[in-house]
């Protein structure tokens, strides 16, 4: 059985992993702030981030911004 072969992780390792995760979160926050304060991205960089599904978690649409504005009535064609 594959499960039996695995050694249980020592508690220290667990703690270490947890700390590492915490550090990573902290780094991520820092990175976020850094991104904004720099505020200089190429269009390609922004769009890559914008269109990418992988980065969905990075997108912050949990506020009152909706992302597509339609004209009140169809655009005139004549």
């Amino acid at each position, binding site marked *: 059985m594959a499960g039996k072969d695995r050694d249980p992780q020592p508690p220290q390792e667990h703690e270490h992993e947890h700390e590492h995760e915490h550090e990573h979160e902290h780094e991520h926050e820092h990175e976020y*702030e850094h*991104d*904004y304060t720099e*505020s200089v*991205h190429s*269009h390609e960089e*922004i*769009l890559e*981030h*914008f*269109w990418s599904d992988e980065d*969905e978690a990075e*997108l*912050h*649409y*949990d*506020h*009152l*911004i*909706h*992302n*597509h*504005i*339609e*004209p*009140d009535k*169809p*655009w*005139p*064609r*004549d």
Partner: protein
Amino acid sequence: MQGNHPVWDVYDQFRTARLNELYYGRRLLSYERFNFWSEVVVAVTSSSSAIAGFAFWSSEAGNPAWKAMLALAAVVTVMKPLLNLTKRIRSYEELFSGYRLQFHDLKDLRIDISQARDYTEAHKARFKKIIDKQRLLADKSPERMEHKRVKSECQAAVLAEFPSRSFFIPGGRDGR
């Protein structure tokens, strides 16, 4: 009828992309201004600020102004984290840049149609690609709450910038 020509879908989308670019640009600017001035008020009223030490604030004219600034700084300090300005500005930046690039893609397509004097299958395929990206955006749309005044000003600006007569229609008008 020329108003039914499929190329109008490109031009409609072109003007809508421009509308979104202008709209999110305006919204971004408002929030950036608000963020800047709120930082100024908080910095000026902080105890370590050199401006706070001006003798003028103790004078009869300066004292009410100082009190008003302190009150404003207190309100701003409470409101800023609630408004989540950093996140909001970042999202507006992303939307603004996204629509700006989409507008440029459509502008390229419009020029190509005009140069080719035709709306070909290749143009249609390019347009579909642009629209597919747009659909990804629309899927992520959480809710609808527009700033009506900004939107109507942007609509008017788009119409003034791109009136219908400025577009090339194959087989009609100058496209004959």
